[in-house]
Structure formats: structure tokens, C-alpha cells
């Protein structure tokens, strides 16, 4: 058998990874919960224990509710586009394009995913610009000038403009996941269905959907937790404004912590984000498992 020294070496190899995970992921998670029961500022080491004060403040804070509503909107629209529409588009790519073109399309649709969100968001400020923006220009050019609008500057449209940028960037990602999982479906299933006279829609519903349900579940979880942790898009496009109209939990947490310097309250907001993503992931996993039986 292996010598004691050999065994020790195996444990030693595990150590760097455990240190990284422990210090930078597990410790902060636990510390964050502790911080959320105290009041402190960036510069000082002093933390005052305030019990549940931060959570009371959180429940009474109207901006938290605005942000939460925006996150829910984000999740609903993202699920519609990045799960349902992306799934249909993925199936469409495989059905209507010859295989070489399908490979090229898959790569092309993935391109926006590769761009830094900063690049995408700054680019879309040109498109949504109030006076000279491309979108307004396009609307005027096709005779719909009355629809022209300060998309990012209006409290009713700001959050939807921000959400649409996320969809533009992310559909390609979930589409790729769906395409790859659809390619793993045994072709015999379709052949048998075709022999039974099943038409395209019927095949999609009774073969493609059930055969990719695991991937649909994964994408659903990714999309929903992404929607509740989103930061860069609203931060760059609107800064959460106008007013707090397009504030989401993560941008609000950033503002509370790093501008208003209320770190304890920011930690409470972070805990809220964590609990929401955890609950939603567990709920989706449970639903997925019961649906299987």
C-alpha cells in the first residue's frame, strides 16, 4: 500500500483548493449573515450589534420593493426569452438549416455572449439615446416617429430597456445549451414518430421537449438566479434610475454599501439576495424531481 507520506501528499494537494473556497466563498457567506445584524462603515473596524434592525429597515424600505419587483420582472421576461423562445429557436435552427449552416449559426448567435457586458451596455446607450438614438431614428424612418421615446430616461420604460439588453446578449447562450442537448436526442425517436405520422409540432411536443427537460431545468435555474443577481446591465445603462425606477437588488446593495456607506444594511440586502436565489433553486429542483415521477 501507499506510504504514509504518499497519503499525506494527497491531502496536501487538496489544501490549496480548500483554502480558496473556504476563505473567499464560505467565510464571506457566513460573515455576511453576521454583518447583517450590525451597523458599520467602510473605514472603521467598529461594528455595533443592532439585532434585526437592518431587516426591519429592509421590509419598510420602498426602494427594496421597487428593486424586488424589477428583479421579478427581470426573471419573468428572461424565462420567456431565454428559456421558451430560445428553446424554440434552437429547435428551429436544427430543423430548417442544413447542418453546416447550423454549426455556423450556432457560433454566430453565440457572439453577443462573448462581449463584455460593459461593451454591450455602452453600445446600447447609443441605441436607446433620447434625442439621437438609433432606435428613435429607426422609428422615425419607418413612420412610427410618435413612438420615439427617451427609453432609458423614462420611469416606465427604463427597466424594460435594461431587460431587453440582457435578452439580446443572453439568448445565444441558452440557445447553444439547447442545441447541444437536442443534438444528443437519438434520431430513431424522430424516425419512429415520423412513421407513426407525427407532424413537426407533435414531434416537438412529444419528443424534443421531454428529451431536453433536464437541460430546460438547468437553464431555468441559471436564468432565474441570474435575474435575481443581475448588476452590470442596470448599473451601466441607468445607474438604477431615473429616480430608483430601474433599481434592482444588486445595484441597490451597491449603492447602500459603497455610496451611502451603510455596510450592515448592504449585508442584509446581500443576505436577501442569497436567500431568494437559494429558495428559488431548491424550489425548482423539487418541482423538477416531482415532475419526473
Amino acid at each position, binding site marked *: 500500500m501507499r506510504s504514509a507520506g504518499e497519503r499525506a501528499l494527497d491531502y496536501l494537494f487538496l489544501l490549496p483548493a480548500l483554502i*480558496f*473556497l473556504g476563505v473567499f466563498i464560505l467565510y464571506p*457567506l457566513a460573515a455576511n449573515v453576521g454583518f447583517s445584524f450590525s451597523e458599520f462603515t467602510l473605514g472603521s473596524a467598529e461594528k455595533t450589534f443592532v439585532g434585526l434592525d437592518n431587516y426591519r429597515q429592509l421590509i419598510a424600505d420602498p426602494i427594496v420593493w421597487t428593486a424586488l419587483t424589477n428583479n421579478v420582472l427581470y426573471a419573468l421576461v428572461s424565462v420567456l426569452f431565454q428559456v421558451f423562445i430560445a428553446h424554440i429557436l434552437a429547435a428551429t435552427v436544427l430543423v430548417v438549416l442544413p447542418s453546416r449552416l447550423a454549426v455556423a449559426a450556432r457560433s454566430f448567435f453565440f457572439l453577443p455572449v*462573448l462581449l463584455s457586458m460593459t461593451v454591450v451596455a455602452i453600445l446600447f446607450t447609443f441605441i436607446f439615446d433620447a434625442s439621437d438614438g438609433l432606435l428613435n*431614428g429607426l422609428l422615425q424612418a419607418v413612420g412610427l416617429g410618435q413612438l420615439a421615446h427617451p427609453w432609458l430616461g423614462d420611469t416606465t420604460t427604463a427597466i424594460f430597456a435594461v431587460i431587453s439588453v440582457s435578452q*439580446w446578449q443572453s439568448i445565444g447562450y441558452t440557445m447553444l445549451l439547447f442545441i447541444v442537448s437536442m443534438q444528443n436526442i437519438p434520431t430513431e425517436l424522430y424516425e419512429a414518430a415520423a412513421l407513426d405520422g407525427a407532424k413537426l409540432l407533435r414531434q416537438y411536443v412529444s419528443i424534443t421537449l421531454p428529451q431536453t427537460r*433536464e437541460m430546460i431545468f438547468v437553464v431555468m435555474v441559471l436564468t432565474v438566479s441570474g435575474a435575481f443577481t443581475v448588476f452590470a446591465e442596470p448599473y451601466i445603462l441607468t445607474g438604477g434610475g431615473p429616480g430608483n425606477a430601474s433599481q434592482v437588488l444588486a445595484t441597490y446593495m451597491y449603492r447602500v454599501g459603497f455610496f451611502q456607506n451603510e455596510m450592515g444594511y448592504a449585508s442584509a440586502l446581500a*443576505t436577501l439576495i442569497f436567500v431568494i436565489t*437559494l429558495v428559488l433553486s431548491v424550489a425548482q429542483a423539487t418541482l423538477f424531481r416531482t415532475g419526473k415521477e
Partner: protein
Amino acid sequence: MRLPYVAGVRLLPGRLVLTAYALILAFPLLWMIVSSFKPTLEVYGRPWSLPSTWRFDNYSKAWEMGVSQYFVNSLFVTAITTAAVLAVAALAAYSLVRLRNWAARLTMLIVMGALVISPQVSIVPLYDLLGRFGLLDTYTAMILPYVAYRLPMAILLIRAVFLEVPRELEEASRLDGCGSLRTFLNVYWPVSAGVLATAAILTIYYTWNEFLFALIFVDSDSLRTIPAGLMAFRDALATDWGVLLAGLTIAAVPVVVVFLLGQRFLIAGITAGSVKG
């Protein structure tokens, strides 16, 4: 790749939908590239036409105005992060397949848990921690958390490949008198080229684009990576649109090139990673 259920299907409507979608994706990107060669007035003044004169110096201006520094910073941070992730994850994955005991199971539990924790949640304690170590506003402030948050994905991917290595090969290596490290280098390292490339590309993609930590943990313009740097760049340029768009294009190109070169590994990694996630 084409599925057999196309017989008798009308292809045109589907193709039109995909073409429309492709145009929605392509248009902003093409506009960005074409406009990046324009003088400022033409960016909004004649948004739908080609530049009257091609301003190639927009690119040299953007480069000199700081994008070169951001670019170098991004390269440096990405390179160190990727190397560290691969080294730490490969060693851990190796231990995990060799140990197969309570320690391995506990580690797997931690890895799976860490996989679903999003960085947003840890921002305040991490800031506090890095501050206490005196690491704020350094490259290290970005690199350490980046490595940590990429490790779970990399460990899972590499472990899956290592599990496929036949035990006999390892036994043989030990009978030849090879120690733990030699066995790792002789038996496991050679089979891991593909998965290491996948893990590397996923790490590069994440690190190159990471925004939140880069924005909060680093203050000096001279240390900023591209995603956070572009924000400062935008504010500094105010209305010099052509140069701003040139900067955006410079920031976008490297990742696209790496993708085209390493597409196969990236796709393998994304799908494997998400299924395990």
C-alpha cells in the same frame, strides 16, 4: 446535425425568423464597428452611412487614452487567474479521485455548494477581508476571488475526466516506483489536455468580462481591467463617440478571437458545466 423530422416541413418561415434574429444581433455590432471609424459628428449625424473619411486614428487615440493599459491589466489578471485555477483545480481533482474517502466527499460537498453561491452575496465581507489584508486596489484583490469562484467549475470538469483514468495505469505507475507527484505528471496530466483547455477558456471568458469585483476592489485607473476601465474611459471621453466606439471594439475583439480558436472546448465546457451545475 440536421434532425430527420424535416421531411415535408416548409423551411421558409423558420429561416425568415432566424434571419430576422440574426439581423437584430448583427446590426448593433456592425454599427459599432463602422461607427468606430467615424469622426464624432458623423456617429449621430449620419448614423446609417459609411464614414466619409475612415478615421483609423480613433483606434490609436483609444489605445493611447488608457485602453492599452486596461488591455494589459486584463491580460495579466486573466493569465494569472487562469494558471492558478488550472493548477489548484488539477491538484484537487487528482486528490479527489485518489482519496475517495470522507475527506473527498466533504470536499465535493463544499465544491457543489460553492458552485451555486453567486459573488454578489459576498461583496461586503470580501471587501472587508481584502482591506484587512491590505490588498484592496491591487491586482491580487481581483485575482484571489476570481480563482476561488472559478475553482468549483474547474474541479468538477477535471475530476470527471480523471475518474475515467483506469486504476491499473495508476497501479502500474506506483509499481514502477513513481511517487504521487510523478504519477500525476505521467498518468493524469497527459489525458487532461482537452479538459484543461475547456476549463481555461471558461476561466478566460469569465475573468476577461468580470465587472463587479473589478469595479469595487480596484480604484486606481492604472490597475483597472477592461470592463471597469471602459466605464472610466466613457466618462473621460464624454462626447468623443468615435474614439469610445473604437475602445469598445478593441475590448471585444480578443475574446471573439479566443472563442473562434477554442470554440470546441468552450462548447464542451459550457454544456458539461451547466449539466453538473
